[in-house]
């Protein structure tokens, strides 16, 4: 399996993670754990510079935390298999799968030779397969790594993403397609996080068949938007795919930053007011959909703002100043927003929350 290669010896890691977990779980944490009311999970950096992942209550209080070997980025949750996964930040080489109810030991998988993770992925509808966005860096091809949850998450295959620099990926509402944001930026682990092709980016959004890996649909961004990196996706109330972008061009470019598309339908950008685009600082760090309430949530760490849109009209319903706004996830009501400074909803914790939050239930 994947964990036999790469940076991490699984047993060593689990010992380390377990010790750290016990060390960090104070009386308050133990009390919270008994309540078993964890509804969010997010990666974080602790004050000592170590990394971990935490679960949180609806109010934003930490329920439990576990250590990670390196910085994580995106997360995914499967209601069917009750598993959560944290992906290493690009160009990362590990992903850690946790049983949401604590019934099994964490599983750490390492990226295959010639591949690294991009920091995002999702589970299949039945929760048995895990899909991860990966980089075939020798060929500069975006790939989807496929891992079998019934077999200790062994890597069982891969599909192309039909684009360069895939980032976020989510499962379509019917479970038959993977929706992928190919950010269009070439990177190579030899050169860290350096963006190697800003002069010829190729951002695109693709739909890929989960059964066959065939390309179902591809939307390459037009030439005038070639510096608009399509990075994050989520599924809207009607099954449409919402996407959010980060602009690699001039600060006063004011490009469209958010849009949606569907199977068989073209891309539609949401015409945000200029003031909102400016507030987002040409950079949406995370997007989430509150399907029950028909809302789209956006955060921008650069702009220090969280924005709520009406999913039907695209109208801006709310703009909230949040210094170093990090993750966003559907809450009841509205959205939970976190920050690098440790804020999660109205609760402050002594950690730096990373860029994404996952909700541990269907909303």
């Amino acid at each position, binding site marked *: 399996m994947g964990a036999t290669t790469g940076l991490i010896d699984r047993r060593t890691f689990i010992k380390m993670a377990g010790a750290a977990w016990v060390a960090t779980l104070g009386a308050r944490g133990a009390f919270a754990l008994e309540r078993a009311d964890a509804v969010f999970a997010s990666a974080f*950096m602790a*004050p*000592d*510079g170590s990394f971990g992942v935490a679960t949180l209550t609806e109010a934003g209080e930490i329920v439990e935390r576990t250590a990670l070997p390196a910085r994580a*980025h995106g997360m995914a949750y499967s209601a069917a298999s009750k598993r959560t996964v944290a992906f290493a*930040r*690009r160009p990362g080489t590990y992903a850690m799968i946790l049983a949401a109810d604590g019934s099994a030991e964490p599983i750490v998988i390492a990226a295959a030779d010639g591949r690294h993770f991009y*920091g995002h992925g999702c589970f299949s509808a039945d929760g048995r397969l895990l899909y991860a966005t990966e980089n075939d860096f020798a060929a500069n091809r975006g790939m989807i790594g496929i891992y079998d949850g019934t077999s200790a998450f062994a890597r069982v295959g891969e599909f192309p993403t039909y684009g360069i620099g895939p*980032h976020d990926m989510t499962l379509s509402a019917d479970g038959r397609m993977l929706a992928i944001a190919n950010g269009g930026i070439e990177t*190579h682990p*030899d*050169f*860290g*996080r*350096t963006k*190697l092709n*800003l*002069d010829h980016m190729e951002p695109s959004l693709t739909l890929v068949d989960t059964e066959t890996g065939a390309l179902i649909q591809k939307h390459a961004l037009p030439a005038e938007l070639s510096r608009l990196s399509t*990075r994050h996706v989520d599924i809207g109330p009607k099954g449409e795919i919402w996407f959010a972008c*980060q602009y*690699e*061009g*001039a*600060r*006063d470019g004011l490009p469209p930053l958010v849009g949606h598309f569907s199977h068989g339908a073209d891309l539609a950008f949401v015409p945000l007011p200029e003031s909102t685009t*400016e507030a987002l*600082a040409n*950079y949406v*760090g995370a997007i989430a959909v509150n399907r029950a309430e028909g809302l789209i949530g956006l955060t921008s*760490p*650069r*702009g220090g703002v969280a924005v709520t849109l009406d999913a039907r009209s695209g109208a801006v319903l709310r703009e909230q100043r949040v210094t*170093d706004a990090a993750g966003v996830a559907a809450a009841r009501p509205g959205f939970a927003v976190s920050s*690098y*400074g*440790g804020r999660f909803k109205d609760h402050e914790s*002594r950690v*730096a929350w990373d*860029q994404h939050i996952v909700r541990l239930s269907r909303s």
Partner: protein
Amino acid sequence: MSYMPSLALGLCLATIALPAFAQEGSALSPRVVNEAAVPQVMAKAVDDFIIPGYRNLSNKTAALATATAALCQAPSPASQDKAKAAFSDLVQAWSTIEIIRLGPALAQNRFERFLFYPDRKSTGLKQVQAILAKSNETATSAATLKGKSVAAQGLGALEYVLYGNGSETLVGKTGDFRCRYGVAISQNLDSIANEFLAEWQKPDGIQAAWKNPGPGNPEFRDSKEAATELLGIFVHGVEMVKDQRLKPFYAGTVDGVEDKGHPKSAIYWRSENTMPSIAANFAGLKTLFDVADMQSLLPEDSRSVAGSADFVFKSVIGISQNIDGPIADAIADDKSRGKLDFLTLNTVDLLGRLNKDFGGAIGLGAGFSFADGD
């Protein structure tokens, strides 16, 4: 060199004796950028580093264009040496100012046209070789060269023309096409350098935006955004040296195992400008750090962060300047490899001081790199 032992001692002190700022308890304590100092720091960065840096670049590209034209008119070993010297002077000037990879450098692919690197697939090399093999005349005019691949019109291409296989023909008539291609590249570089300078000199252009952060500003809405951009130059600059300039040719000693090295992956290896270029990268960063008065951005009680960074800057500049000759020889030599290990170690240390310590001290709670989203 004779001062190596004391320099080495200084470097040891740099890595072990300075207090780490971002310990538990301080990393997340509320810090703020000294907002009142920001406009002046930005103005100094523009007036005392960026514009003079691009003016120097423009002077060096003009001198190179003259030297390559003289080589074509009167080919000789002496005129070839002059062209090579002008190339090395330009590499120094570029390596000092290339850390400003923003604004005009991002527009019209100017950065990539000036320097296409890393060139992992040898795209540039293949294209330059093809131009030379076919004597493609459209490459001998700056006007038409400009429209060709970014990999065939910049410093990497010119280095191959002046130092690569066949460059010995430049001293005679058989090198005529090669020489004229070299002139076109030099003129192209001169045009780009002049564009950089003109863009930064426009009174109502990017310099106005840099000097007056605030609402309605096309670059920075507030002082924190401006200070973050400026700090980003340092963090990204040191990261670039670490990841793009050092690691490709020598990954260092990991767990007691020395990397055998990849000298032909080193930037400017043909002209032996690898280490001079790296030294100039660091020297450029340090000059900017000093002349912009970066330390004035820090709260009074955190100013030691700047002193620590400055100390490590001096160390990495000194050690980079202390590795001479072909980079392949340096990798093969125990003593030089030790210096490279030392340089790598100190580069990582410098990155931490700027990223975490400086970033934390100006209010980026979790450090600069943590806050770059993704």
